[in-house]
C-alpha cells in the first residue's frame, strides 16, 4: 500500500475515533467534533489577526530558540574548557532544569514586559538542552584523536575545525531538534499565562475563558501543525546541509 494512502487511512481512523468519542459524550460545547473544529479553524484562518498572531508567536519562539542555541554553545565551551566556569555556572543549569516551567513563567511575568516572557521562557527551556548536549559531546571527544592532532601539530583552528566540530555536530543537531519542541511548547505556555497581544497563547486563553471549546481545539490544532511544520523544516534544512537530523 502506498505510504500516503496508509497515512491517510490512519488519520481517518483517529478522526473517526474522535468523532465517536464526541458522539458518546454528547456535549459538543465541551468536546467538539472534527467538523466543528475544522469550521472554527476556517473561520479563524479567514482573519488577518490569526496570521499575525501566528507570525508573532513564531517570531517570539524563534528569537528565544536561536539565542538559546548560541548561548548554549558558548556556555558549553566555557564550562568544558574551564573547571571554575563549570563549578560556577552548573548550579544555574540545575536550577533551570529542576524548576517547573509554570513557576518560571509566573516569576518572569512579574519582572519583564509580557511580550518578552515567551521569548525568555523559550530561551530558558532550550538553553540547558544545548548546553548539556554540546558540553558532554566535547568531553567525549576521542582522546586518541586529540593526541594525534597534537602529534601532527594541528593549529588550534585546525583542531577545532577538523576534530571538535565534526565530533560535536551530531549532539548539537540532536539538541537543536529536541530543543525546538521544548521552545515551541514552553513559548506557547508562556503566552497562555502572560497573554501578550497578538499571540496564539492569548487566543488559547481567551477560548478557555469564554468556554469556546471549538476555538480552543482550532488553536491547539494550529499549534500542533506549526510544531510539526517547524520540525520538518529544521530537518529539511539539516538534510540540505548534509547533516543527519
Amino acid at each position: 500500500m502506498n505510504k500516503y494512502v496508509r497515512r491517510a487511512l490512519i488519520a481517518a481512523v483517529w478522526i473517526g475515533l474522535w468523532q465517536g468519542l464526541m458522539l458518546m459524550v454528547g456535549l459538543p460545547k465541551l468536546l467538539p467534533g472534527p467538523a466543528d473544529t475544522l469550521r472554527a479553524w476556517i473561520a479563524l484562518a479567514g482573519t488577518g489577526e490569526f496570521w499575525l498572531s501566528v507570525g508573532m508567536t513564531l517570531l517570539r519562539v524563534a528569537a528565544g530558540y536561536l539565542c538559546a542555541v548560541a548561548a548554549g554553545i558558548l556556555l558549553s565551551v566555557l564550562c568544558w574548557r574551564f573547571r571554575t566556569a563549570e563549578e560556577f555556572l552548573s548550579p544555574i543549569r540545575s536550577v533551570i532544569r529542576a524548576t517547573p516551567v509554570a513557576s518560571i513563567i509566573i516569576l518572569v511575568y512579574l519582572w519583564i514586559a509580557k511580550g518578552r516572557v515567551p521569548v525568555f521562557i523559550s530561551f530558558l527551556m532550550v538553553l540547558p538542552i544545548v548546553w548539556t548536549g554540546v558540553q558532554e559531546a566535547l568531553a567525549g571527544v576521542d582522546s586518541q584523536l586529540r593526541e594525534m592532532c597534537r602529534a601532527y601539530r594541528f593549529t588550534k583552528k585546525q583542531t577545532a575545525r577538523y576534530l571538535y566540530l565534526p565530533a560535536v555536530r551530531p549532539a548539537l543537531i540532536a539538541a537543536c531538534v529536541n530543543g525546538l519542541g521544548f521552545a515551541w511548547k514552553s513559548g506557547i505556555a508562556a503566552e497562555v499565562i502572560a497573554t501578550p497581544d497578538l499571540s496564539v497563547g492569548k487566543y488559547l486563553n481567551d477560548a478557555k475563558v469564554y468556554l469556546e471549546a471549538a476555538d480552543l481545539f482550532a488553536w491547539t490544532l494550529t499549534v500542533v501543525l506549526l510544531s510539526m511544520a517547524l520540525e520538518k523544516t529544521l530537518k529539511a534544512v539539516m538534510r540540505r546541509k548534509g547533516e543527519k537530523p
Partner: protein
Amino acid sequence: MIRVEDVSFSYPGKPVFSHLDLTLPDAGIAALMAPSGYGKTTLLRLLAGLEAPASGRITGLENRKTAFLFQEDRLLPWLTAEKNIALVSDAERAAYWLEKMEIDGGQYPRAMSGGMQRRVALARAMAFGGDVLLLDEPFKGLDEALRDRIAGRIRDVFPLTVLAVHDPEEAALMGAQILRLDAGRNG
C-alpha cells in the same frame, strides 16, 4: 646520537621503565625489540614528546621534526583518506603517498579494511615528513606481499626511522639495527 639516559617512567599504578639507558643512532633505521609489556610503545611516545619521563632525560631530538605512526590508526572518521593525509601535508604529497600505499584516497575510513586503514595512517606519517619517523607496529594487519612492498617504499625516506616491532622478520625487512629494550632495562 639520541640518548635515553637514566629514564624512569610509570603510568598510574604501573611502572614501565626504571633507570633505562639506551643509545639510538643519529641516522638510519633502528628497531626496538622486546617482549610485550616492556615499553616499546612508551619509549616511542617519550621520543615523540607525548610523554615526559618522571626522571632522567632524552637528548638529541631537540628541534627535530618527528612523524609518529601510532599503534592505533587514529584517522579522522569524517574525512576521506586523502583529506586525512592532506591535512598534515598538502594535496600533492597526499596523492604521492596514497599511490605508494596503494590506496584509493576517496574512501572514508569506515569503508576500509584494517589493513587499508593502517596504510592510510602510514601514508599520513610519511607525508607529514620531518627528521625522525617513529613507527609503532607499522605492518599490523598487512599481508606478507603487501608488507614487503610497503617496507621497501618507506625504508629510506627519513634521515632516522625508529620502529617498534615484535617480529624480527619485520625488522630485517626494513634493514634495521636491532635494539633490545629488555637488555637496557634495569631494576
